[in-house]
């Protein structure tokens, strides 16, 4: 070896050893994990149990909570010895010790016994059937999907009101004695946009997951009932509109079934408006609005209106 280079060898060795064992080097390796499951003496998962993970050397403690399956995981721990405690209301707490190494995952499960305080009753003593106390993550996922889709239905439904109102307004200009096609084209374009948004909104409502065993009650019944009017109306209106458009374009007076295009459109728009009001306003307001619209349309005092009133009374009791 070159004598000059050999002089630096001890220094080089010191630098290498310092880098390997320095606190800076070790602190970068906080990649260990402690995980496990907390159950009761029957093996049932204990949700929302508090798990405390304490580094024995530094005294630093981290708290976590078990999920609905009773599982917990504390990540990004530096290697070392840890004291892990699990506790939950109604149970005696338990403590365990575990040593973790770099990038390793250590599992520590707890089986908690009921609290030795005999005076504290437990949930199992109340006699609820297990179907009512047991967590159901699949049903929660179904509810989440349902809520998400109905939110999309609501947003698209509200957005649809803009072109819908514009279509109704321009409808007054599209007919008449005017031979200009501009107004008719604008009305047709707005009508197409309304139909597109409407059916997109309807998709989310129709295909949102249903929850078995749920009885439909309240203003949602009126909301769903209106769909039987504005749904077919939203299909028939463009068909009649296309016929009327064609007749006008050929210089003819709108005749035949096409002359009912505006009537069908008005009824469709009114039913759509009641549907929105039914889930927006308070119970009594929604029913009164339905009655006013029905009276304005000359539909009279129907059986369905009586049913709605009964629902309103029960909701206000």
């Amino acid at each position, binding site marked *: 070896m070159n004598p000059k280079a050999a002089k630096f060898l001890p220094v080089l060795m010191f630098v290498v050893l310092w880098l390997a064992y320095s606190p800076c080097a070790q602190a970068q390796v906080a990649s260990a994990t402690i995980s496990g499951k907390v159950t009761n003496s029957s093996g049932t998962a204990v949700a929302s149990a508090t798990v405390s993970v304490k580094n024995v050397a530094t005294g630093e403690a981290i708290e976590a909570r078990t999920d609905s399956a009773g599982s917990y995981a504390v990540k990004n721990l530096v290697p070392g010895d840890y004291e892990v405690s699990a506790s939950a209301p109604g149970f005696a707490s338990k403590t365990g010790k575990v040593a973790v190494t770099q990038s390793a995952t250590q599992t520590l499960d707890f089986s908690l016994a009921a609290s030795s305080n005999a005076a504290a009753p437990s949930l199992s003593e109340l006699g609820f059937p297990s179907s009512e106390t047991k967590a159901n993550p699949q049903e929660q996922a179904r509810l989440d999907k349902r809520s998400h889709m109905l939110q999309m239905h609501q947003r698209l439904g509200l957005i649809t009101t803009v072109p819908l109102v514009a279509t109704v307004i321009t409808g007054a200009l599209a007919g008449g004695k005017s031979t200009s096609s501009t107004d008719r084209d604008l009305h047709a374009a707005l009508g197409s946009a309304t139909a597109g948004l409407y059916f997109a909104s309807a998709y989310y409502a129709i295909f949102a997951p249903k929850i078995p065993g749920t009885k*439909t009650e309240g203003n949602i019944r009126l909301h769903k009932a209106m769909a039987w009017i504005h749904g077919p109306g939203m299909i028939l209106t463009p068909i009649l509109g296309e016929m009327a458009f064609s007749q006008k374009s050929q210089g003819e007076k709108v005749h035949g079934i096409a002359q009912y295009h505006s009537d069908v459109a008005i009824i469709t728009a009114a039913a759509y408006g009641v549907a929105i009001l039914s889930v927006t306003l308070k119970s009594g307001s929604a029913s009164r609005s339905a009655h006013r619209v029905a009276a304005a349309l000359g539909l009279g005092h129907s059986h369905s209106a009586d049913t709605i009133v009964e629902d309103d009374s029960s909701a206000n009791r």
Partner: protein
Amino acid sequence: MKPILAVLLLLTLPAIVRADSQWVLEKSTLTYHVSHPLHEADGVSHEARGKGVCQAGQCNFLIAAPVKSFNSGDSNRDLHMIEVVRGAEFPMVVVRTELPEAEIKAGPIHADLEVQFAGQTAHYKQVLFQLTMQGGDISLTGTIPATVSDFKIDPPKLLMIPIKNEIPVRVEMSWQREK
């Protein structure tokens, strides 16, 4: 002989005074109230069950109700409520409290409550309840000042406007003593 009897009486007297007793929830009405600029709604449950155990002058009470049992009169609203509070994952709302047995008498009573709901635990200090005695049974009414944020619930919105944070829960219960 008499001194022996007196001693025996003195020894058994504390046990007589501190006799264990149990309470059972006979009937209940729990009502939550939700406020929104366009809606006010109350959800009612009559399906709570409860038990109280008194020992050594101290009583521990446990009351629980299924989240799904709350009915606001609108099935769509109720399903959305269950989704928002994670009611399928955490199906029960559980209330625990501890009271000195001597305070269980007619009149106002303040109780510290531990409420488990939506996977969270919240503590309410000194909640006021009114107790009325009916023979050996008690009726209790009061309101728990719960809020949406206490349980880390994402507040539902209607027309982009969220509900108010306060969701007070009115409690009406009838308890029967058992021995």
